[in-house]
């Protein structure tokens, strides 16, 4: 009985450590630079509220950037619904760009358009 119990405990520890692994990366900001990043450009592709994260694309200096927003429901709660910002409109975004300099991707906290600020991560500065 004693050995079985200790086996159970060992498996619990294994399971717990496996479950804990992902929490540090995705949906976190580990893959993105700590530096604040701002970008102004025109909307290439409007907001999409498809999961797992809302997205949009911005064109700046002839390059197309992929913007990763908050999860769909959270992005919508911030007022940033599909179709609100028209394609071609000039917007400024604030967030953290991908650590990989070759990837034009920004995990976006705020989108500013036409005097309105959509703060999809209000708990982050």
């Amino acid at each position, binding site marked *: 009985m004693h050995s*079985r119990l200790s*086996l159970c405990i060992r498996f619990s520890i294994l399971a717990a450590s*496996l479950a804990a*692994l*992902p929490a540090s*990366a*995705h*949906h976190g900001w580990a*893959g993105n630079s700590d530096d604040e990043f701002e970008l102004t450009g025109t909307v290439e592709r409007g907001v*999409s*509220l*498809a*999961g*797992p994260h809302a*997205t949009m694309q911005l064109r700046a200096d002839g390059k197309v950037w992929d913007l990763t927003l908050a*999860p*769909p*429901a959270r*992005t*919508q709660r911030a007022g940033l619904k599909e179709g609100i910002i028209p394609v071609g409109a000039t917007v400024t975004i604030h967030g953290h760009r991908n650590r990989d300099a070759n990837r034009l991707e920004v995990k976006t906290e705020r989108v500013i358009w036409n005097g309105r600020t959509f703060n999809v991560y209000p708990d982050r500065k």
Partner: protein
Amino acid sequence: MAWLEGSTLGHVMRESGVWTYGCVNLVHILGVSTLFGSVLILDLRLLGLWRNIALVAISKPTVRVAATGFIIAAISGPCLLATKATEYVGNPFLYIKFSAIGLGILNVIVLSTLSAWKQHKTRELSAREQSRLAVSGGISLACWLTAISAGRMIGYW
């Protein structure tokens, strides 16, 4: 992948509300946990734990529950993939995951043809037959652990 993303399934996943992805993701996790939970019990028994319980008493419920979990996961998974299928092109974890699932299924097929597996329902197995099944159990555990680990890592690539 472009075809999958452009399919009706992809459109439905993207255009049917902000909670759709989360809910389908929940169903997928329920399927995966159902599959793995029961597979784990069976594999550990095949590897030699709980020898005082007849194998058939464990194999019967766990195989059924695992199969149900697999079906749930196999239906919900492609829905998640279709949402933004093209984004996963080049994601190594996706390829590891599907290879592991393929091997896991192959292992099930091989196991079901083993005479030891067929015989365990009607009689006690010899030590040699038991160790043959233990190999299957070990492979199974490795396959499904790999599939789950790689699957979880897809989003972090």
